[in-house]
């Protein structure tokens, strides 16, 4: 068998899936997971997802996905809309987290599941808001800030939690501030460089660079953070995420370079990750035990976002606040990623992971649809 055969099949699927899922009206990510399930161990058993090259590309795809999620966190929203929305967003997250903890305890699970359930899906939410045409409105901006804060906080909580658990790295905890020190160091250095050498930096972003120096610089920056965070005992994704945030804070969005990075990510690496998620999906486990968890998880996922979003009712109508809660209930890549991390750390079993993946698929389809249907209608 050719070494490239698995990659070939994945590439063909990655190409076909968006075309088909657009027809049916589901996010491409959901299509990728479903395809992964079908060709993976659970159904057809063509691949296990453990093939050497694929496993690595999939892991790197996940790291790169976190980089792009960080890149999508746009601090100019917080900058422009001031402290008030930031405080509201933080409050909303705390309420979400508290609600999840309480309800997850009823199910008999620990904090990690509560953390996972508190996250949001920034990419999906931004694209839904864009479709409805309200990204620029204050309402749309508020929802975005809420989603940013949720995703950011979840990453931080996961990092903190893994440190708490992994006793082996506890002595390394003092080094973690180093990562943030590096973050601010690079930030101030970057700002200084932009001011001092705009000519040189401008080249990184130009569309006509034959050696794609900007893309190379981005990968180098990302991998510095990835390697360092792993060396310090944190998850690689934390480093990638911080590098993405750094990139976004320094340079703002909407550049050609960002488009190129999206091209590499969403065009190649990230579909491999999601198809791989499907391939290692534990369908038997889900059917034999995980499935009954899904309705309960769905309920928690919705309640934990919709009830706290009522804090918006002072500013917006009740319906708008509830709809914001519904849209914020959608979860996708972030939750799936965090579940994968949880399995790796032995915090959740593959049955629960499968339930979480199914939950992500369901919310990512129904929540944006409800929002689109009901927003602006009486």
């Amino acid at each position, binding site marked *: 068998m050719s070494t490239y055969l698995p990659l070939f099949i994945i590439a063909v699927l990655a190409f076909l899936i968006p075309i088909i899922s657009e027809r049916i009206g589901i996010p491409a990510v959901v299509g990728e997971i479903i395809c992964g399930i079908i060709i993976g161990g659970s159904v057809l058993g063509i691949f296990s997802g453990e093939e050497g090259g694929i496993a690595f590309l999939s892991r790197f795809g996940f790291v790169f996905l976190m980089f792009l999620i960080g890149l999508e966190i746009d601090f100019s929203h917080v900058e422009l809309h001031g402290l008030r929305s930031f405080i509201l967003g933080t409050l909303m997250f705390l309420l979400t987290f508290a609600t999840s903890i309480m309800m997850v305890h009823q199910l008999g699970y620990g904090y990690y599941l509560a953390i996972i359930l508190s996250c949001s899906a920034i990419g999906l939410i931004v694209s839904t808001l864009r479709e409805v045409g309200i990204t620029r409105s204050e309402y749309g901006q508020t929802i975005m800030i809420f989603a940013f804060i949720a995703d950011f906080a979840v990453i931080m909580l996961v990092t903190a939690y893994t440190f708490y658990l992994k006793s082996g790295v506890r002595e390394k905890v003092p080094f973690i501030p180093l990562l943030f020190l590096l973050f601010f160091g690079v930030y101030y250095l970057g*700002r200084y460089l932009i001011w001092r050498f705009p000519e040189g930096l401008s080249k990184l972003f130009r569309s006509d660079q034959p050696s794609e120096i900007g893309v190379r610089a981005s990968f180098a920056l990302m991998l510095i953070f990835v390697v360092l965070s792993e060396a310090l005992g944190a998850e690689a994704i934390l480093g990638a995420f911080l590098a993405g945030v750094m990139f976004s804070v320094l340079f*703002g969005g909407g550049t050609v370079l960002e488009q190129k990075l999206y091209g590499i990510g969403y065009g190649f690496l990230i579909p491999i990750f999601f198809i791989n998620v499907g391939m290692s999906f534990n369908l038997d486990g889900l059917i034999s035990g995980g499935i009954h968890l899904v309705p309960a998880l769905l309920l928690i996922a919705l309640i934990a976002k919709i009830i706290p979003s009522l804090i918006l009712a002072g500013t917006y109508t009740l319906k708008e606040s509830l709809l914001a809660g519904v849209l914020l209930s959608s979860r996708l890549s972030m939750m799936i990623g965090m579940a994968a991390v949880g399995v790796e750390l032995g915090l959740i079993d593959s049955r629960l992971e499968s339930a979480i993946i199914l939950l992500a698929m369901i919310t990512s389809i129904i929540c944006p649809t409800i929002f689109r249907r009901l927003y602006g209608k009486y």
Partner: protein
Amino acid sequence: MMGKRIIVGGGRIGREVAMQFPGSIIIEADPSAAERSSRIHDTRVVIGDGGDEKLLLDVGLDEAEAFISLTDDDEVNYRSATIAKRYGVPKIVVRVEDPEHEERFRRLGVETVTFPAKMIANYIGDLLRSDGLDSNSIPFGKILVPLIGKVRAEKAFKEALLIASASNGKTVVEVISSDIMELRKKEAMAREVGVPLFNHLLEEGKLIEMLKSHLHEADCIIIDDEKIALIDRLLHRNVILQLMRSVSCPVLVARTCNYYRHILVLLDSSEVSERILIIALQIAHLFGSDLSVLVLEEMSPEFRERIKKRGEVENVDIIKLKVDGNAMIEAVKEVKSQKYDLIVIPWRGTGIIRSSMIRKIVNDASCSVLTVA
């Protein structure tokens, strides 16, 4: 003989300069103009060509302390300045008629005086179009210059007078200070250029509160460039930024103190961008400046059409700059290119230019910066 000044060209400006510096020598080719110049007290007039090396040497070019060439012919001015340069005259000032020639004169290493022909043309146009300047077409009706603490706001006051005098007395300058002597001095300066001025005496240290409460009706506040140390930066002890945060009118940080020959405007899709553009166009109109517009975000075709129309109304040449790559970096590149005398930027904007970068531009640009909130 020390202190000798040679003036080539005995026109109105040459005569005015000679009057300010007794003992000057005027070289004038036209006998009737020479005749008028000879009436000036303590001034020697020589009839002849200012580009004639022998003549210049005869009147003592090699020992002159200053050489001023003010004819309306750039060629004559260039020739005579070249000769003066060769003989090592320490101070050479030359009038340049055509702005395109300016670079050549600069390369020669001489000081230049340009008369913005377009500014005068716009001014005459305004006079012809209606009864004087239409009050809609001046950027600011009232300019406020606060004299903060030890800062004398020399530059700020100069630029305020410059804008006000270009607005033909339709703009009022208001000065507030706690120093009565300083106010008297500024009053005298304003009277000299015919600009209406109001003074306010206030108690030390109440400036920001005062601006917040009852002086917010100023259309523009002009303040001096402020040198801030790192420690002040860290402690946010930055008067300019404090001021900008607390007022809603445009704030100009003065550094250029001269006609704005070239203005740069940064535009994003925020709500203020139209206002920013109108103010920039009005200033460009007053000074006959060229206006470069750096569009940071995609603009609606209607907006672009409005820009074009507005530019035609104000008779301003608009140069559109396109962003290729990162909008913020391209903006910094333009700001730092030294090509501009005034930069007009949104104080908040849509976040394309990070607010930290806007603050940096305000603090560290090399020319005047006008921020519009």
